[in-house]
């Protein structure tokens, strides 16, 4: 979902105003008598009290009329206002009546004042909205049938609410470029643009890259870039989200699905340690786009482009859809097998190593990309049931932390790994294990969610000496190609689980699509492997696993899926 029509995030608990849905208040335009001033509630020293459509509101000084109205559940329609950007006041959709002011005033730029009497639903206000709609549409192409924005387009929405339903404009429209690649991932249709300047302000104020500007004047005004500097920054996709119409579209999503078919699943991006809150948009068991979901404590309204595109790996990377076994001799090809057979083989191989060379010849590499549930089961099964003495977590770092969202730590759950007791990601420990594998000291290795070939620490031949290489992963990595047993796991978007971001906020990632083939969540694969080493317990659902983890791990004591809700919760000591 692009940014919600509601101007301020709705608090998860407490007496929140009715959820706005997609429709702003449909205004019955009955004239409202001015409520007596006595109705004004008392205001504190930093507050002002005002009446909006007769509803008493007490808001902090400096709050705008538009925001004050939202706080009492009245949505003043708006295009250019965005809670995360400076006020531009250019669309004029939010004009409302304020007593003692002869002209209508824009709600987005007018500060609420003590005793103010605001009317947002009078005939005059309504007629003005109709007028703004008409102005916005006279030069608009009405591409709705082929426009990706249709269905979540404010122009459509407000036209349904306030529009005339017919046009008085019988002239040639102004024409602009229609398929202009304004950036690497963003397509611009200048005819659909309503010049709200949200995209420009985003690039000036948030990404601080300043690629966009207005060019030309009057009804020839057009958003453009400077010569040789396309819209190309690490956060460019946000301009698409905040564009209230279909002017900016996200190239990877263009013409992929009509938005009303999409099912938005609230989740968390796994691209880095920030853990931006996202919606995964599913249609026909595919994730078609990832968009930021408002969480003022994590990502506010934004996410980065890399995260936004991260779901593509699910479809683009090679998968293996069922368990794979290496045939009788260790050099034979990998062949499909049934789950039970594969798990039995994995257990047998690991047991053979333990029996032949001792448990110290076993090691495990588990990923901080896995969820709390997965890692908890890894500790439980690999560490305790099988008794693998060394488990290491590889780091994945790239670049530097920036001052917006992106973290150098590209794993989403390093804090989770640490609080479970797996230690912080540590390349030295990983290297030691791999060197020991090359030298023959380690003879059995379990790799979960990592491609150990990726780091280039060891050559493929180095792993030749392993008696048992058991790999649990969601894609057919080069490591999988070397495995004796490869067990298919759910990829991002296919599992439910919890990720703890760098600030210690535990947040729920959710399954948006069914797993590919026979893939299973990692925690369940580990559970079933564990059963072969005497693991008890039920472990029927991800939330059940989390509950047990919460019961034994003090930092997450008291947390549950219900408590985490859609915005997550801080772990203790965060």
């Amino acid at each position, binding site marked *: 979902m692009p940014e919600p029509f509601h101007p301020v995030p709705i608090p998860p608990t407490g007496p929140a105003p009715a959820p706005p849905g997609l429709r702003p208040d449909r205004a019955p335009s009955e004239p409202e008598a001015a409520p007596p001033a006595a109705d004004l509630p008392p205001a504190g020293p930093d507050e002002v009290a005002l009446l909006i459509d007769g509803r008493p509101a007490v808001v902090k000084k400096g709050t705008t009329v538009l925001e004050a109205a939202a706080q009492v559940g009245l949505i003043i329609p708006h295009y250019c206002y965005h809670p995360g950007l400076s*006020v531009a*006041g*250019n*669309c*004029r*959709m939010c*004009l409302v009546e304020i007593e003692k002011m002869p*002209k*209508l005033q*824009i709600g987005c*730029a007018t500060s609420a004042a003590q005793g103010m009497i605001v009317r947002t639903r009078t005939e005059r206000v309504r007629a*003005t909205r109709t*007028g*703004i709609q*008409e*102005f*916005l549409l*006279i*030069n608009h192409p009405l591409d709705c049938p082929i426009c990706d924005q249709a269905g979540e387009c404010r122009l459509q929405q407000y036209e349904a609410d306030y529009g005339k339903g017919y046009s*008085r*404009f*019988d*002239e*040639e429209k*102004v024409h602009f470029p229609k398929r202009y690649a304004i950036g690497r991932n963003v397509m611009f249709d200048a005819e659909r643009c*309503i*010049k709200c300047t949200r995209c420009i302000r985003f690039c000036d104020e948030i990404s601080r890259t300043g690629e966009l*500007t*207005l060019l*030309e*004047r*009057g*009804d*020839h*005004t057009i958003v453009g870039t400077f010569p040789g500097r396309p819209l190309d920054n690490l956060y460019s996709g946000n301009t698409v989200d905040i564009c209230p119409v279909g002017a900016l579209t996200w190239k990877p999503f263009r013409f992929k699905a009509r938005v009303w078919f999409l099912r938005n699943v609230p989740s968390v991006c796994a691209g880095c340690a920030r853990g931006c809150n996202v919606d995964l948009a599913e249609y026909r068991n595919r994730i078609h786009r990832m968009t930021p979901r408002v969480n003022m404590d994590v990502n506010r309204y934004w996410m980065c482009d890399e995260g936004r595109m991260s779901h593509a790996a699910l479809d683009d990377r090679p998968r293996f859809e069922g368990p794979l076994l290496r045939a009788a001799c260790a050099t034979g090809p990998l062949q499909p097998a049934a789950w039970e057979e594969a798990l039995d083989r994995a257990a047998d191989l690991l047991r053979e190593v333990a029996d032949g060379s001792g448990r110290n010849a076993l090691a495990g590499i588990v990923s901080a990309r896995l969820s709390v549930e997965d890692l908890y089961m890894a500790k439980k099964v690999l560490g305790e049931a099988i008794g693998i003495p060394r488990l290491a977590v590889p780091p994945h770092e790239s670049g530097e932390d920036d001052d917006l969202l992106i973290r150098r730590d590209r794993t989403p759950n390093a804090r989770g790994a640490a609080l479970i007791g797996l230690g912080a990601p540590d390349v030295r420990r990983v290297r030691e294990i791999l060197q020991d594998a090359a030298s023959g000291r380690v003879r059995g290795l379990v790799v979960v969610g990592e491609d150990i070939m990726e780091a280039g620490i060891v050559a493929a031949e180095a792993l030749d000496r392993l008696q048992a290489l058991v790999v649990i992963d969601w894609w057919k990595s080069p490591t999988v190609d070397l495995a004796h047993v490869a067990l298919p796991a759910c990829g991002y978007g296919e599992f439910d689980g919890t990720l703890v971001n760098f600030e210690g906020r535990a947040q729920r990632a959710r399954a948006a699509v069914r797993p590919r083939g026979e893939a299973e969540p990692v925690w369940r694969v580990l559970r079933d492997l564990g059963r072969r080493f005497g693991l008890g317990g039920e472990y029927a659902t991800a939330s059940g696993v989390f509950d047990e983890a919460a019961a034994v791990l003090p930092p997450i004591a008291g947390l549950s899926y219900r408590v985490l809700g859609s915005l997550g919760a801080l772990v203790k000591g965060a």
Partner: protein
Amino acid sequence: MAFEPILLRNIAKPGSETIGSYLASGGYQGLRRVLKEFAPEAFVEEVKASGLRGRGGAGFPTGAKWGFLPKATDRPRYLCVNADESEPGTFKDRLLIEKDPHLVLEGIVLSAYAIRSGTAFFYIRGEFHEGARIFSRALEEARSGGFLGKNILGSGFNLEVIIYRGAGAYICGEETALLESLEGKRGLPRLKPPFPAVVGLYGCPTIINNVETLANVTLIAERGAAWYAGIGRPPKNTGPKLFCLSGHVKRPGVYEAALGVPLMELIHEYALGMMHPDRPLKAVVPGGSSMKILPASKCDVLMDFDSLAAAGTMLGSAGGFVMDSSTCIVDALLNIARFYAHESCGQCTPCREGTGWFVKVLRRLEHGEGRPGDVDLLLDVARKVEGNTICPFGEAIAWPVQSYVEEFREEFDDHVARRACPLARMAAS
């Protein structure tokens, strides 16, 4: 026509733009007097007492505007001189800049002193190459004469004046667009509040005044508020005023008269009457292209702020254009509408879209392709622009549309009914 020019007293002298000529006729005496006799605040009071109202268009009392500056501030204050003069029909500031730059500059120094500003910006319309050249020479002359720079006339007051040339956009005459442009940005009007007196250039308290306004300040310094307030129609319409007359008059030009001069006197005595004696007066726009039109029947008015307001229009920038009976009002409005469609900054919805719409409908009307309902459509669109925009540019086109249609409704309807321009004056485009 007995008005002895005050503002224009020097312009006919050869070399009037030089400091020598200016000093010879008593120039910079007002500055000398004020620096010696007035504290800045006292001079603000003096200007208030003079009744001077801004000559840039809105007629806001100048002293009162200066009084809006925050009393205590640790930030610099700026004076911005609005020399962007671009309103069609208006060409008075240019005359002052080119012919008597020191009269303007003295007013700038005086005003900067009054508001305690150490830096003034002279924002001059890009097309005024000559004006910019002349004014920068005047700055040099004044600096060597001790009227500008450090310790002006030994008073301890310092002032630098920086000339900034616009890039040719009408909207940059709007005071907040001017500030944006000065800051090196696209000239888009700002939302108000905050007003420039509080948050202006580079976020600092700023006063914006028109060139002619500042020239008047020089007069007040020279001869005092009481003298000044005796000119025109006190108490609210005082002082001399430059009137621009163009259109169907015999001698178009800039004329100086006291505020309150009758419009018909301006036309017949100053501009020597109608260009073609056989074509009667049809209408006058007294205040520049953004003001409402007066049909001939309403032209018996006095040319001052309040008389014109009472007549339903405004003095504006006093750019008066006179139209005789050969004028097609639809064509005249189309001409103006094209200007506004071209100059709208494009920022806010009603103005950006409405200005273009006006042109399209008017062009059809004038070309004989009008349809029933077109005229009411114009009125309705104007009503939706008026009052709903970021800056007064919206009214600057909505008012002409409304008033031209209201005053000359029959002529508009006639265009529709005949499917042709009755005067067969097809617009060029």
